[in-house]
């Protein structure tokens, strides 16, 4: 036995060692519990989040006493009333929601051809290039990228200098709504591509050949075959982009320059500038509520099964 063992690679022998060690400390009787032990960390993390949410909900119903700077001892609805009665918060809510919908649509439109090309191209070189171009932004981080856009789009930025060369006067390209949306789209496209690519890979090329031989030109084949079959990927990618944009902080803060706040910026202000924790908590609850509502609506329309989860899909 011992002489055989030497012939196996080191990796195998290490695995055997680990197995033996686990067998020594973990009785065989308990092996049925192993899967539950393995999901425990994830369950604990979610549980912590739930506890935090309960606390935030509790805070959101306590109103800050401006004279003592202490939260009220009893529950009041004043924070929520203030939010719903103030035009400022309505406009922030509307801006966040509209912005995230626009960003989602644009991301899906731009990401679809990108993923399609990445999945379908016969050239390994092009595929590698597209993948690198996709992952490179991930290494840079959101804040640094936003500052990059400040340099490029600023009044003395590269874009305005180039435009100046052809005689166009400097334009204000920053600190407005389109700049925030632009930054968000640029930030979210890789997420959308990564979510779409597996869905497009799952569509056999033969299906498109079949559509073509049955008389569909590329447009009809796209509308009647590729798009419906890519629906799970589109919904998954859309949900990820929508929730990430809705809750985004850095892009509105940096590219919006304080004039284009999303909900997360308003929450930040309440927690860390005005120190009105109750108000911040109330805004948080509303944000979580809107996000859950949107995801709930999408699931109830398309069904969770469209995300290709569940076992009876073929």
């Amino acid at each position, binding site marked *: 036995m011992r002489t055989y063992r030497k012939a196996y690679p080191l990796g195998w022998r290490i695995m055997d060692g680990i197995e033996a060690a686990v067998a020594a400390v973990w009785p065989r009787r308990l092996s049925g519990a192993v899967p539950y032990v393995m999901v425990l960390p994830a369950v604990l993390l979610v549980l912590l989040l739930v506890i935090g949410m309960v606390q935030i909900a509790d805070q959101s119903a306590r109103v800050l006493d401006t004279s003592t700077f202490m939260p009220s001892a009893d529950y009041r609805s004043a924070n929520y009333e203030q939010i719903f009665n103030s035009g400022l918060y309505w406009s922030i809510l509307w801006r966040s929601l509209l912005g995230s919908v626009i960003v989602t649509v644009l991301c899906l439109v731009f990401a679809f051809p990108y993923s399609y090309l990445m999945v379908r191209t016969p050239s390994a070189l092009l595929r590698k290039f597209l993948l690198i171009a996709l992952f490179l932004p991930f290494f840079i981080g959101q804040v640094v990228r936003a500052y990059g856009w400040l340099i490029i789009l600023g009044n003395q930025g590269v874009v305005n200098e180039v435009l100046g060369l052809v005689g166009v006067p400097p334009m204000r390209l920053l600190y407005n709504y389109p700049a925030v949306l632009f930054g968000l789209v640029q930030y979210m496209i890789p997420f959308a591509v990564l979510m779409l690519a597996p869905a497009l890979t799952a569509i*056999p090329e*033969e299906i498109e*050949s*079949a559509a*073509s*031989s*049955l*008389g569909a030109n590329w447009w*009809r084949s796209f509308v009647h075959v590729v798009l419906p079959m890519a629906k799970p990927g589109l919904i998954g990618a859309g949900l990820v982009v929508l929730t990430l944009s809705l809750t985004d902080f850095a892009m509105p803060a940096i590219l919006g320059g304080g004039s284009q706040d999303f909900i997360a910026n308003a929450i930040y202000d309440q927690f860390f500038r005005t120190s009105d924790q109750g108000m911040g908590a109330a805004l948080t609850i509303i944000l979580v509520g809107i996000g859950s509502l949107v995801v709930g609506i999408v699931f109830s329309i398309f069904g969770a099964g469209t995300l290709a989860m569940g076992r009876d899909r073929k």
Partner: protein
Amino acid sequence: MTIEAGIEGRAAQATRVAVSVRNVDMSFADFHAVKDASFDLEDGRFLTILGPSGSGKTTLLRMIAGFQKPSAGEIFINGKPVSATPPHKRSIGMVFQKLALFPHMTAAENVAFPLKMRRFDATTIPERVQRYLDLVHLGGYADRRIHQLSGGQQQRVAIARALVFEPDLLLLDEPLAALDRKLREEMQLEFRRIQRELGVTTINVTHDQREALVVSDEVIVMDKGVIQQKAPPSATYRTPANAFVAGFIGVTNFISGKVTATSGDAVSFDVGGSEVTGTWAAQGPAPSVGASVTGALRAEQVRLASSEAELSGCQTTSRGVVRDAIFEGERLVYEIDLAPGTLLRVFDHDPAAHKQFAIGDNVAMGWNARDVLTFPN
């Protein structure tokens, strides 16, 4: 012979050429897939392109369908060159290897798809879809989703979808390869029935030699990108054009040796000390003495007995030791030493009627010179 003459005579009435492939060549970056392929296919005939994987048969089919453009040469469908026509403008129905049915549609929607894409009169579509579902015996399954159908039923939907718009040409890209044997044989007969019923010109691609013989009016055998032979099934089997065709169809023993004598078509050659006489089957003159040749002898053409005396009808007899005897139900397969290093595979199709041999028995084998088709080596 009379049955085969009947089968081959039936389709000979049609004379109009439906598909004409002229000097078609296809090269990929590092692979010459199809080399100078030419053939004509008459209207209403069922052609099978048979070959091992990598023989270029699928590439040839994909060029006819329009998914690939030939590097050289031209393909004519009903007399018109089609190289510049994209697939969706050709009138070709195709059944794909993995069927490529649309999973988000019902059986009826799948069949209606080509009619909608080709802008058929919308009011006639439901009736037509039903007629073609009936044709493939799926009349009651119109509203089933694809994943609710069995493998055989999915095959039938794919056939209906490829035929419903009455294309000039039906292409079958090994659609039966994934089925189990029983279902595959059932579907082969089904393809044949539907093709005869509609009279649609059909090109089938397969690596299954049995399927090629069963379904086709004509068989093209391809190897390494080159068309080796185009002939009706029985001719492909009986008179293969070369050793490759002889070996690819049927179970064939190859016996090689140096020519010792020739007389007309008869070629005698030496196989490890024993002399075998065969019939020269290749084009061109018979080989000279000393040339290296290969004889192809079908496993079912060899007769076995305990002694040579019982093989009086055979022109050539030899002795050998049974190395293996395999019971396959309807037949027994023997492997017998003919000469050192040359095993002969022999079928006994009615084991109960003959004496059975065991491993180690020394037996007599006999065959006729016309059954040893001899080719240059």
